[in-house]
């Protein structure tokens, strides 16, 4: 690819405009998606190392029961990270997801709600969490407030509502079918994992194959440009928070089924795990760039670390330290990868 040959093609005589005045752009011909691919490859490499560590330090890492446990543990944060990825790519952040889980799980398990049976409970969880997301989104998009502040307010007040409704007491699930959500298996794989997979699939299609997804990237990358291109920026901003709320609904259902209780303490600090996974997955906190696959891998990496620590009987504080170290190392590596590709 010499400079000369490109000039020749540019100044071909048949050009209608004064094409021979075209400036030549001098750029590396790396594929556009290179950065994203590198990020995902990096995460896969980390995962591979963890698998090696896991299988050498423990005897039962590769046992099917352990792998299934690992996947179902990853499911709840995984579902949250799907919604969070949309929010972060659009340039926002959602700190209220843990609190929304608590409120949805409490509201879905009150005595009154349980009267309506399984479907009534599911419906309640979806409506409550979706409404919380809508409130967040409307305040941010139409009220012009910063998402960090709105969702910190949500973090406090949604959990407060949950405590108020439940009286601070865990509410036992008495509806028969509900617990089955956590225990049912198809082909040896827990239903929770299918729910996680389905959420990821729908999220991926929405983000990568629809106009809406494209607009999310545009709003996060340059909101003013999106507005001037005729995109309804406020509607996009609202929708991503509603999506995050709906993911909270799914997560709340999963958590309530696993614990067989609805509690105002559910989902505590889950927002940080979800955000950590999204960042580890290479999504820019400033918005405009990211992948859903990266976020999912981020969740799997964190869960695998936890799993290995538990199998080796290492304490929770050490797990937490390891998590912090992983985040810092991953972000440092990403910055290096970005810098070499940006030159």
């Amino acid at each position, binding site marked *: 690819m010499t400079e000369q040959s490109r000039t020749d093609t540019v100044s071909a005589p048949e050009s209608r405009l004064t094409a021979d*005045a*075209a400036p030549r752009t001098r750029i590396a011909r*790396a594929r556009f998606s290179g950065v994203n691919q590198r990020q995902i490859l990096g995460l896969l490499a980390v995962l591979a190392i963890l698998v090696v560590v896991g299988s050498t330090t423990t005897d039962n890492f590769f046992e099917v029961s352990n792998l299934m446990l690992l996947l179902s543990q990853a499911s709840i944060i995984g579902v949250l990270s799907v919604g969070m990825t949309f929010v972060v790519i659009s340039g926002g952040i959602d700190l209220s997801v843990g609190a929304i889980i608590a409120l949805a799980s409490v509201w879905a398990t009150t005595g009154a709600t349980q009267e309506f049976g399984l479907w009534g409970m599911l419906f309640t969880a979806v409506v409550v969490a979706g409404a919380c997301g809508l409130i967040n989104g409307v305040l941010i998009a139409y009220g012009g407030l910063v998402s960090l502040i709105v969702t910190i307010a949500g973090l406090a007040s949604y959990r407060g509502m949950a405590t108020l409704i439940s009286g601070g007491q865990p509410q036992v699930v008495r509806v028969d079918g509900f617990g089955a959500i956590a225990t049912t298996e198809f082909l040896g794989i827990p239903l929770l994992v299918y729910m996680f997979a389905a959420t990821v699939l729908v999220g991926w299609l929405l983000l990568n194959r629809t*106009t809406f997804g494209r607009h999310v990237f545009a709003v996060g990358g340059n909101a003013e440009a999106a507005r001037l*291109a005729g995109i309804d920026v406020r509607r996009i901003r609202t929708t991503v928070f509603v999506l995050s709320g709906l993911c909270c609904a799914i997560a709340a259902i999963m958590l309530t089924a696993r614990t067989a209780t609805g509690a105002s303490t559910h989902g505590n600090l889950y927002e940080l795990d979800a955000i950590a996974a999204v960042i580890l997955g290479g999504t820019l906190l400033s918005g*405009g760039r990211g992948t859903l696959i990266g976020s999912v891998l981020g969740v799997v990496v964190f869960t695998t670390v936890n799993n290995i620590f538990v199998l080796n009987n290492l304490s929770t504080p050490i797990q937490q330290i390891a998590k912090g170290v992983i985040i810092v190392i991953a972000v440092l590596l990403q910055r290096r990868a970005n810098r070499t590709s940006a030159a």
Partner: protein
Amino acid sequence: MSTTLLRMRGIVKTFPGVRALDGVDLEVRTGEVHCLLGQNGAGKSTLIKVLSGAQRPDEGTLVWEGETVSPRAPAAAMRLGIATIYQELDLVDGLSVAENIFLGHEPATAGFSRRAEMLRSARRLLERLGHGEIDPAVEVGELPSATKQLVSMARALSLDARLIVMDEPSAVLAHDEIAGLFRVIEELTRQEIAIVYISHRLEEIREIGDRITVLKDGRTVAENLPAARTSTEQVVSLMTGRDMESAFPERISGSAPEQRGELLRVTELCRTGEFEDISFTVGRGEIVGMAGLVGSGRSEILQTVYGARKPRSGHVELAGQRLRPGSVRAAVRAGMGLAPEERKSQALVPYESIAHNVSLAALGRYTRLGWVNRPAERAAAEEVTGSLRLQPPDTAQPVRVLSGGNQQKAVVARWLLADCGVLLLDEPTRGVDVGAKAEIYALVRELADSGVGVVLVSSEIPEVLGLSDRVLVLREGRIVRESPAEEIDEAEVLDLFIEGSAA
């Protein structure tokens, strides 16, 4: 005035896949204004980075006051006495003028800054620039661009700079502010400080410059030409490797605008404090130019017509259909497009590919039930960028790799794809080099010939006069003159700008 201050020889700098500098020579004497010319991508920015210590050259020598040096970091270059004033002024908005001037080298005793002394020294430095009226205690964020530039220069002086590199300093300035800039530059050169001046505007170089060095494709193609005696034709042919053609395409003669049919009608548009009583029409295939100084309301009018700002009164009709005021979506749906002044911040989504940027406004066309037909989208984007001869032709590249002229093409391509009937162009050639300018002019004319109505806003009067069919002259938010472009000249437009505003 004749000792050599800086001599760069055979500077080479490569990035992965690119040889940005391929043997650059540059010689700057004390107290001269040395103009650095070159098209976008010729290597000017990289050369500045090498000079300012931000990038290290792979090969070549840098001789500063007779000694070979190799500044490894911006701080090292500053210690030598080389300061750079970037296009995006690197000031901290939340700090005061004085704090910005002394940022990083505050006068201090045991860590406590001596504020009074700082303010005094800042005032002295601003006086040296002939601008003692600037209050050093004021927050920089509240200042206009021209004043910020002065703060950057004062900062350079505070570092005892002997050489100040100015990267397109006039790009952020209005017509009358440029005269002020030139006075400051003269003041600096009188104090034996050398200036490396970069600009796309050849007239400025003729006015302020002493000598010219021309870069092309990372090489110095001409060194130390006398700025006053080198013809524009010669400079342009050195920059482009070609002879200068007529910059503006010919207007189609024949059908008068009235016969072409009206496309856009703006009636008594008003926005308090910005503009008043703006009425004009644009015919099919017509280019209407708006000439006005910064602050005359030209960009604001364009944005209001587009719906990005809400008018207090008045309305906009497109093809007979009245648009909802203050709604960009209504305007876009009716077939209007805007290529805004600030392409990077207002038009392009930096991380997205060229194809995604181009299809942004027309995505609905390649969508069924929310589902994007990606092959169709890609094919359409490639077709339209191909017809505009956008470089590079690979639309999977991220949009940020594009040069200024190609960014503009990408924005125009977006509206072509959306089938827009009226295109609003705000400063379409700002930051675009000479060669690409002619190409954009040809493109705009070609669009008009195909029936698109164009509204053109530009601070360059020759551009407005040369490209438009009809010209509206604005002063302080009002149209003071409407005329066919052939019947008005630059002197007359300037007269209209100044008339009344002096009173």
